[in-house]
């Protein structure tokens, strides 16, 4: 394999992973933008969707239908989460909301342990998705292609949504200035519900793709993805949708690069390096790459 082919291979890998991070990060960014809430429990929506899909598969549904059902379940779970845990504390200080999301995470994870088992369950994906395609010397996992295509489609739809539809523009308005949004007559409750619904739907999709990639699911599967989604969001600038997308791909590229560049003895430390890189980034750009560099004005 030539170095060009190697590079392309790695690039596809990076973009595929980056797509998953980007989709996750968008969900976080939408909610953060409007509510200033860092929703840790976003990761558990991945878990909820995956377990729902598994159960539907067990009930005999074809994969595509089960996956669809899983995404719907994530979406509903997200909406319920918003209504029960987050709406009552709206207006509370940021840390209170962050901590509440921790509590919701613990609740969901332990509930999953009780209902299913703490041990991982295999996730049966249809053969096409587990295969790889050969292009000469290149071996491209079909899952990577699916992930990239799905992400692209979703990103395009989302962009159209937030720039062309009234609800989408209202969402952007609400994340700019919540008070002004209310004064203009935007139904903030509805807009927030939309943000959660879209974010949760994206989490559901990421969940399916992630589960196929890893091959099994367990109650704690959402923890690392949401952490990565955070990092992606922070890299790009919390609350910014384009920032979330940028951050997701930067993170994907960074991870693959580190994997390739780190000597074998240091490669288990890769995640540590990723976080160290994050902290260094924050030293120079305390608000992320696309975040404002201005200090807060009075």
């Amino acid at each position, binding site marked *: 394999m030539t170095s060009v082919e190697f590079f392309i291979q790695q690039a596809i890998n990076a973009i595929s992973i980056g797509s998953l991070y980007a989709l996750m990060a968008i969900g976080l960014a939408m909610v953060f933008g409007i509510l200033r809430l860092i929703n840790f429990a976003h990761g558990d929506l991945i878990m909820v969707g995956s377990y729902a899909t598994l159960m539907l598969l067990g009930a005999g549904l074809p994969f595509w239908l089960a996956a669809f059902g899983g995404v719907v379940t994530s979406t509903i779970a997200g909406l319920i989460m918003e209504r029960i845990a987050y709406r009552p*504390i709206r207006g509370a200080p940021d840390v209170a909301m962050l*901590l509440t999301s921790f509590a919701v995470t613990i*609740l969901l994870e*332990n509930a999953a342990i009780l209902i299913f088992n703490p041990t991982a369950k295999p996730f049966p994906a249809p053969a096409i998705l587990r295969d790889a395609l050969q292009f000469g010397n290149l071996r491209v996992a079909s899952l990577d292609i699916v992930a990239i295509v799905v992400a692209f489609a979703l990103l395009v739809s989302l962009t159209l949504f937030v720039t062309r539809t009234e609800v989408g523009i209202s969402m952007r308005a609400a994340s700019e200035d919540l008070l002004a949004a209310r004064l203009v007559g935007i139904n903030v409750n509805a807009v927030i519900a939309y943000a959660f619904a879209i974010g949760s739907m994206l989490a559901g999709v990421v969940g399916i793709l992630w589960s196929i990639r890893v091959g099994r699911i367990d109650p704690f599967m959402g923890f690392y993805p949401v*952490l990565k989604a*955070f990092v992606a969001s922070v890299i790009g600038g919390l609350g910014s949708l384009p920032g979330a997308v940028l951050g997701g791909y930067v993170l994907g590229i960074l991870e693959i690069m580190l994997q390739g560049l780190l000597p074998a003895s240091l490669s288990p430390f890769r995640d540590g390096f990723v*976080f160290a890189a994050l902290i260094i980034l*924050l030293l120079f750009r*305390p608000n992320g790459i696309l975040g404002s560099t201005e200090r*807060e004005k009075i």
Partner: protein
Amino acid sequence: MQRQRLYNLLTVALLLTVTLGGLVYTQLAASAYIQRIVVGLGISIILVVSLNLSNGFTGVFSLGHVGFMAIGAYSAAILTLPLALKRVNLPDLPGWLANVELSFLPATLIGAVLAMTVALLIGLSLMRLSGPYVAVATLGFLVIVQVVLVNWASMTRGSRTFSGVPSFTTLWWVWGWVILTVYAIWRLVNSSYGRRMMAIRDNEIAAQSLGISVVRSRIIAFCVSAFFTAVAGSLWAHFILSFSPKAFYFVETFSIITMLVLGGSGSVSGSIVGAVFITVLSEVLRNAERGISIASFHIPPMYGASQILIAIVFIVVIIFWPKGLLGDREIHFNRLWSLLLPPKKRKGGL
């Protein structure tokens, strides 16, 4: 002012007497089970009060403090591990470390100073961040610590259990440190330093305009808090005697934060109240997890249910008492003292 100082002295005397009395009773008359709980409670109090110094009083919302606990625990345990065990369990330790065996206090202090140094280093980069960025960055620190612990197997045995830690922690060690920690942090919070910290927490820009160095105050609080957190880590390591990196991660973090939030961030006595409440509640629930029989009605064992209930308690508290049970007020015994020792009437008013 004279009166207040008298009251303060009385308060301290009362608290010390009650604490000592309680400890003596526990040592002599309580069961081993209760003794263990009281030790655990003391460690929790140190953790929560230290965390409060950073989160509650300076507004630096650290999610990574358990990382300092891990540094304290592992450093002290490596230093106190008997030489023979070191050869067996940690064969790859560097030479100078493999031949060292320290006693409890020096090992604990070294661990704490190490944690404090790390806090200083990361503090310098984190202190300019605000709100959610600090939280995510400190969470990053927690992950980095975890990754290092799991992978630096020559020092830590990696993800395998680190066992054979000498059982140095006693009721007296723990509560001695509790008293020291509470005293130190109380003094810090009520000093001019403390007032500066609270000014920063409440309004950073206004504080800066008054010439208060935001970064310096935050770093001091962060480092002091890391010091005591590491001490608690060491105490814990020599209590539980065997542990692995998993003990210093997310679940532990949430547990401490729940105690903090329940008691009220910004209140030292609140932290103590929160620690007591959650410790008791956890024990009760953990026993219930094994299944309860009420007459002929049997609730089956539900492991993990206690976590769910604590999470629910947390959510309920945040919704209804967002400032915690005590908010940022402290428990004062002034009214009690003025009842017992009524002030003399002064002629002509104050």
